[in-house]
């Protein structure tokens, strides 16, 4: 009797679970999405992957460590460690130093630009406008500061340079009170 009852129950639950699995199927990998949401979306490729999403996929597949992203900085590593329940690691110095202070933007010197469109093609966020043999320009509002357009990609010297954004009352930050005044000056 008990065997029949359990078999019937197992069948009912099996059908129910099977239905739910099909009906409420989640497209894509949700863990990749939540990792991707933590990454700064600079698309710079300093982590060794061709963008933030591929890096997120590599982390989710356990193929990459969580400390490969310099723009995310130590706080980014910490956030990923909290999300994934892993130990926070110090940032991998091989990929470059963490971004400190004001954001950097790429600027094109219009006098020097020869209109080769190389930077237009490589920009991961379509922030560069221009056509062949016409001067190019970078839209400040979209530039992530990924540095992919810098020489050696740009064939002209001093055409594209990185420049810190101006400090205004909007992006100025109160200094950390934990840091002593003397250290701040240094």
């Amino acid at each position, binding site marked *: 009797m008990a065997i029949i009852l359990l078999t019937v129950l197992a069948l009912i639950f099996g059908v129910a679970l099977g239905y739910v699995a099909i009906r409420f199927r989640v497209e894509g990998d949700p863990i990749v999405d939540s990792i991707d949401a933590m990454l700064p979306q600079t698309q710079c490729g300093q982590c060794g992957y061709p963008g933030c999403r591929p890096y997120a996929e590599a982390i989710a597949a356990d193929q990459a460590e969580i400390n490969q992203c310099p723009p995310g900085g130590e706080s980014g590593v910490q956030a990923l460690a909290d999300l994934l329940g892993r130990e926070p690691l110090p940032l991998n110095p091989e990929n470059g130093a963490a971004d400190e202070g004001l954001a950097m933007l790429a600027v094109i010197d219009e006098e020097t630009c020869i209109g080769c469109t190389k930077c237009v093609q490589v920009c*991961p*966020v*379509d922030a560069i406008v221009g056509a062949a043999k016409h001067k190019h320009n970078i839209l400040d509002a979209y530039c*992530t500061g990924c540095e992919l357009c810098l020489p050696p990609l740009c064939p002209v010297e001093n055409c594209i340079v990185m420049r810190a954004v101006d400090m205004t009352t909007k992006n100025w930050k*109160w200094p950390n009170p934990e840091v002593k005044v003397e250290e701040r000056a240094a």
Partner: protein
Amino acid sequence: MKKLWRFKGGLKLPGFKSLSNSRVVQQAPIPARIILPLRQHIGEAAEPVVAVGDKVYKGQMIATANTFISAPVHASSSGTVLDINQYAIPHQSGVTEMCIVIETDGADEWDPKIQANPNPELLSADEIRVRIREAGIVGLGGAVFPSAAKLKPTRTIDTLIINGIECEPYITCDDALMRSQPEEIIHGILMLRKLLQPLECIIAIEDNKPEAIAALQETLVKLKTAGVGSVNTIRVVSVPTVFPTGGEKQLIKVLTGKEVPQHGLPYEVGTVCLNVGTTAAVYNALYAGKPLVSRLMTVTGPQIKQPAIFEVLIGTPVENILAAAGGTVSDNYTLIMGGPMMGMSLRNATVPVVKASNCILVEKSLAQSKTTTMPCIRCGACANACPMNLLPQQLYWHARSKAFDKLVHYNLADCIECGCCSIVCPSKIPLVHYFRFAKTEKYEHEVKAKFADQSRIRTQVRETRLEKIKLEQEARKARRKAERLKKSAANTNVSKQASAG
């Protein structure tokens, strides 16, 4: 006697008001150069309507407000526009912003178009609002919110509160204004009454300013006997001296017992709150037709030779004001714009006086007053002192660890940065500094997250576009190949037929 309520927390602070308030209001000399920042208010910066080299009159509009939350800027003396460029503004950071610089000619000649209005009573509510806006009037209590935007509430107003509290130590300019210009203030209130139609108007003054209370009460009686019946709705209410009663939310609680909802505005509880200085500026705009080009300002502190109250042209460099007050006692001083509790330290004295500047406090240099910070002992004194019912010690931990979700949970955004918690802390932890730090860090974090979302979408759009182009190219290639094959097959057929024929 009116029933009064109490807000939680707050402090009784030493006043130091007698340093400056025994003096009569002096006229500060016209400086050689006037620096007028285009944003002296909350909201969008005004846009210049003059060019370098233009001759301007005193009171002439030199920058116009193009959005609702904005205020125009007027030349505060006559002269020539010398430059329109980035200059240091009074801000903690020492950053520069767009300013119009005027080289004064000393004549201080008013714009001939500005004329006194003999019958301001005849103005309609909309006309009054437009004139207040065009006069560049902003909240002179310190928040510098454009007043015209505040005077358009979407519900009925029960109480119009005129804020004459001035609860910070040292500051005396509102006190001086109430003592010297009570009639202007009351006529200003009568005009505002027309706009808002409140049931009652309350002028709130702390009980440490008996002369100001007496001056306003006498004026009310005088106007009543002169037959101005509408003054019946105006009352002067003396409130206990507790810092920060001058805060809008605290004052509304004290006078009406109501609490402004979180993230809400005073009109939601049927009140509108305006500073006495703003009210006097409204009088000037409507009766004399004059825009906001000057304000009363206290210059005081232990390091200034002759503490004083000045009527200052807006745009006057701070160094000129210091010189007018006899200079500093020594070179070891710190400049604070505003009061000792909520004011900001200035990096140098070349910055101009703006509409928000109510006081220049010349304190001893910070280097001389070294304090050692000790660890938090969880005594809870800060929570008892907080007038906003926050838990500063919790906020402190989370600010240190930059736990933004926790900071939201503990309502960091409601902190008014009054400084009560820092004063009572037995461990001398600069709590307000931590909260300001956390606020800017949190803001940056939010801006970055928003930018990251935008970048993610742009990357996805680009990738799908590249993918599409690639597919199209492949399809074209395949089609061409197929066409070529067909053609060559046809050719061979033709040649076969030809050879057969």
